[in-house]
């Protein structure tokens, strides 16, 4: 049971453009406009725009809920209430958003103005781009590229570049060190991250999220054969998201606020938002690749998108739990861990996948 977003939007667009607007212009006598509105291209473009808007709004709402989840869950882990603005603290993020809207925009005198301004736009833009590839259910998705997995990770790969740009342009020593750390760390953890996905790809034989989930629905959730891969993926993903214990680029204790030190006002809000957008995407990929995506029991009663979101929130909850229980690790230790521990483990995972495939077990 799922909502077919595209079909629904197509119907809506058709009704809007042909039955309402077209009829109105036809009544006026502008048959040219009526025909143009009813033409295939116009319908298609409008449908795409409306779908994009819906996906953006839903994605943003989910990301905001993630911020709420983090603040509330971290609060409970620390034996306090957490945020309490609005019912169970749900409105806190909206209050923050309204506040950053009217904050003064300060550009440091010695900053490289162009790059300083472009970098947050790049970061939030790339983050929002990743909504495109994430399907919530068989019907609720933006696009269905054959190489969806590759596209998502390619978009992930742009972030360190933008971070380093912004860090350098701020003309602040803390930012610079934070940006360099971000670069080193993100590049070091891309490799095990991608290698841990290779096992999934070998088993399912596809780079398409829908086919991967279909495979899991037909056979078994991939976390069972690929438990090692899931572990490597989760750790690398936490590093990729720059969250504790791998939040070195934003290490508050020594680097003030890390590479975002000089960003205030709305730009700070955007960077904060993009962090959770990426958190949403990361948790979604883990769900899609290893936890069966929207697969789950009682599919005829429970909407599939709900299963997906539930799993995604649980994965993000694990990430929050890690933040509550662990300290930050050091620069040399993080690189050691990436290259010397996670990379071999990911390679072993690939071998396991190959063995499973050749034996024909899964």
């Amino acid at each position: 049971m799922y909502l077919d977003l595209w079909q629904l939007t197509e119907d809506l667009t058709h009704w809007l453009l042909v039955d309402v607007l077209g009829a109105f212009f036809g009544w006026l006598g502008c048959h040219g406009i009526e025909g143009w509105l009813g033409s295939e291209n116009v319908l298609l473009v409008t449908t795409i725009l409306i779908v994009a808007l819906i996906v953006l709004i839903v994605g943003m709402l989910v990301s905001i809920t993630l911020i709420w989840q983090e603040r509330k869950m971290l609060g409970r882990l620390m034996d306090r209430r957490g945020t309490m603005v609005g019912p169970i603290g749900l409105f806190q993020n909206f209050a923050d958003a309204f506040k950053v809207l009217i904050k003064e925009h300060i550009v440091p005198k010695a900053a490289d103005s162009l790059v300083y301004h472009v970098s947050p736009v790049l970061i939030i833009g790339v983050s929002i781009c990743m909504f495109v590839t994430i399907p919530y259910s068989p019907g609720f998705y933006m696009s269905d590229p054959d190489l969806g997995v590759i596209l998502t990770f390619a978009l992930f790969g742009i972030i360190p570049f933008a971070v380093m740009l912004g860090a350098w342009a701020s003309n602040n020593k803390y930012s610079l060190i934070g940006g360099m750390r971000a670069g080193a760390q993100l590049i070091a953890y891309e490799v095990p991250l991608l290698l841990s996905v290779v096992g999934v790809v070998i088993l399912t034989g596809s780079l398409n999220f829908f086919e991967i989930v279909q495979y899991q629905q037909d056979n078994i959730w991939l976390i069972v054969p690929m438990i090692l891969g899931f572990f490597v993926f989760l750790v690398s993903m936490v590093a990729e998201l720059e969250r504790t214990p791998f939040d070195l680029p934003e290490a508050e204790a020594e680097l003030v606020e890390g590479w975002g030190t000089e960003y205030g006002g709305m730009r700070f809000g955007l960077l904060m938002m993009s962090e959770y957008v990426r958190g949403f995407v990361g948790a979604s990929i883990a769900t899609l690749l290893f936890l069966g995506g929207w697969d789950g029991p009682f599919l005829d009663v429970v909407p599939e998108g709900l299963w997906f979101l539930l799993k995604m929130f649980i994965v993000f909850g694990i990430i929050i739990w890690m933040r509550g229980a662990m300290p930050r690790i050091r620069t040399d230790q993080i690189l050691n861990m990436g290259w010397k521990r996670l990379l071999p483990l990911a390679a072993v995972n690939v071998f396991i996948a190959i063995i499973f495939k050749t034996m024909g077990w899964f």
Partner: protein
Amino acid sequence: MAEMWINMGPQHPMTHGLWNLRIKVDGEIIVDSEPVIGYLHRGWEKMVEDRLYPQIIPMADRLCYGSSFSWSHVYCMAVEDLMGIEVPERAQYIRAMSDELQRIGNHLMWLGAIGPDLGNLTIFLYALRERELFLDLFTSLCGARMTYNYCRIGGVRNGPPPNWERDLVRTLDYFEKRMDEYEDLVDRNALFRMRMEGLSYLSGKEAVNLGVTGPSLRGSGVKYDIRHNDPYEIYDELDWHMCVRDEGDVYARYRVRMDEMRMSVQIVRDILKKMPKSGPIRVKPPREAPVGTGMARIEDPRGESLMYVVGDGTDKPYRLSVRSPLFVILSAAPAMLNGNRIADVPSIMGMLDVCMGETDR
């Protein structure tokens, strides 16, 4: 990357007070460092020359706000030394008990502060949660949360309130359970150990020469605790032992402080057993001090604190000079920092339990 100087401070999350650590880094490695202090210097030693002897007690409380009681304690002891006053036994017990409770409270603040230093906020909130209990105890004892104005020249202001023993024992029982929780969270967490072990080695000989005292010194394997080696009040009659670790790294300093908290609990229990139930708690000091000098030193939560008072026959001290433990430990900071990474600065400095009020005076 070329070498560059970085100012960590005056406003920086690492400082836990107000000072400026200038470090010269080569990439991530610290090659040189220099603490810059004096941002909180308010001329304490000059101002007390214009105050009556009893008026200085609340000012001594504000020397270090984390361990107020031990500062007013050392001040009163120095003036008693100058005036030649013998403190009643019950007052000595109460002082020692307050000292140990203060030590626990201060170490809990330190434990809270290293949490954000190492990147974990949970331990901060847990430690502060228990610190509130000890502040409650102090509130019932002397009416204030942090700056007590409780010690008096010749004794203490008042005896323990009714039900004091019951509350104290309950708090200590509860606190010992919580200590296990902290150790679960920190000691049994591999990442915490990774951050602390083998970091910033300081040999015992070097530490002694640099004037490092207190838990940092005992973390380097030097058996020296003023409560044991130069006993004051009634510490030589109590049942306790020194907490020493031989490793000399950050983890050892952490362990020494944790052990000290448990030891303080033991000392307080022992005091409760041995303290006389009644008796005078205060003798009346003379208004004017004689001509001469007085000196006292005690084991502050951070190390050796010493006060040297010169009297000139009037009711105001002619000169009162203070040895702050952290003042000297901070001068040893370059020896601990150089060669480590920027990421380790907060954990190394956090382990020293920085309190700038007493350092700058």
